[in-house]
């Protein structure tokens, strides 16, 4: 009898805890980006930040070691490749500078956004998300530095993601590789718009909605499209086409894009002070 009563009490307790979780879950899910729960969350982020920074400072040499295991063999060939790319980039920059000036003038005439002319705030990446299901990073700046939800995050190489959560001194960035991320992009050569989908892993990202007739070259650059009501301003570099295949029966090409930013080894980023319209 005692055994029976005890196991019933256990089960009651389980149901109680599970229902509490579901209630909180529902409240948070329905509440969206505001409400008391969001307040608790951002307070926790801010309160935990100093402890986290201290621990991070202490362990960063260890994890640096972990990350660099196996890297040494690649360094030499990587160096050679980077030199070659730098030369190419220098030549391209000279060719591009004049065209860029011309285009900026045209965009200004049309009243369009241009990422190159936006104000930005530098930020340091303090951690990656403590989960295996979302690909996010945490920055050491928040609303105190005028950051807000929806702002694009970039490095000199290109697009990183956008801010999805912000507290006073911390903000969370959803990377473009996260399965929930969709980026409106444009192929640089043809100008054809498509949607870049996060795949959840660190592999190249699939590019959707490019029809079979459009010519696509491997290595072709991809930039944000900045279409109306888009989540990003136009002309931020996103990556290059790595792989193109097309089946005659399919409606669209299978295209894989290699992001231009090394999203695994981010240290410093810039947050563009730009909000999506609409």
């Amino acid at each position, binding site marked *: 009898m005692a055994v029976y009563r005890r196991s019933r009490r256990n089960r009651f307790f389980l149901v109680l805890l599970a229902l509490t979780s579901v209630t909180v*879950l*529902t409240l948070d899910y329905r509440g969206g980006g505001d409400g008391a729960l969001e307040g608790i969350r951002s307070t926790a*982020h801010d309160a935990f930040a100093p402890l*986290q920074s201290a621990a991070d400072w202490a*362990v960063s040499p260890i994890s640096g070691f972990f990350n660099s295991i196996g890297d040494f063999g690649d360094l030499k060939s990587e160096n050679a490749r980077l030199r070659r790319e730098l030369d190419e980039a220098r030549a391209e920059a000279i060719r591009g500078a004049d065209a860029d000036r011309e285009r900026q003038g045209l965009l200004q005439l049309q009243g369009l956004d241009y990422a190159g002319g936006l104000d930005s705030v530098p930020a340091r990446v303090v951690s990656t*998300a*403590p*989960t295996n*299901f979302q690909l996010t990073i945490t920055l050491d700046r928040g609303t105190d530095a005028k950051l807000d939800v929806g702002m694009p995050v970039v490095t000199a190489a290109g697009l990183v993601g956008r801010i*999805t959560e912000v507290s006073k001194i911390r903000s969370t960035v959803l990377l473009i590789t996260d399965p929930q991320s969709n980026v409106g992009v444009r192929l640089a050569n043809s100008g054809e718009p498509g949607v870049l989908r996060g795949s959840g892993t660190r592999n190249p990202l699939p590019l959707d909605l490019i029809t079979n007739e459009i010519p696509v070259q491997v290595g072709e650059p991809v930039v944000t499209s900045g279409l109306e009501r888009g989540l990003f301003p136009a002309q931020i570099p996103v990556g290059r086409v790595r792989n193109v295949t097309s089946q005659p029966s399919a409606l669209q090409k299978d295209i894989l894009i290699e992001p231009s930013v090394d999203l695994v080894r981010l240290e410093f980023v810039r947050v563009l002070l730009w909000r999506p319209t609409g």
Partner: protein
Amino acid sequence: MRSDPRLRLPVMFIAALLLQTTVLARIRFFGVMPDFMLLVAVAGGITAGPTRGATLGFASGMLIDLFLPTPLGLSALVFTLVGYGVGVANTGVLRSAWYIPVLVAAGASAAGVVLYALVGSVLGEPMVTGHLITIAAVVGVSNAVMAPVGVRFVDWSLGSLKAGAPLSA
């Protein structure tokens, strides 16, 4: 250790959270990191039975939820169920052999990951992908490796709370 037993639980939770968000978040195998907060729930079930396992799972899940972009309460719900399940399955087989907690940690952690992805996809988060198998496997193995230390740590943190409580239901 002669520390105030009432302080042990908060100390354990803060240490676990720091470990998860700083050290483990940087150590990834195949792009996947170990899940110490899930291990806390498993260890709770192993050392203190279903009720305390569920409670520890709830607390550690709620704590990590505060630092995740997913809705608050998702990990709490899953970890509660995992802690309870391990407690029920495991009462009485405690202290039998050193490898039992290790095996339980591996199985329960992998199962917890899959459950998390399933509940998550009910909420519209795209979590059930081909990558899920890798995540479950890596979390299972790495949590099994951490289990001997993790279980002892959680056991210590429960300290006097557990004293006097019979381990068999």
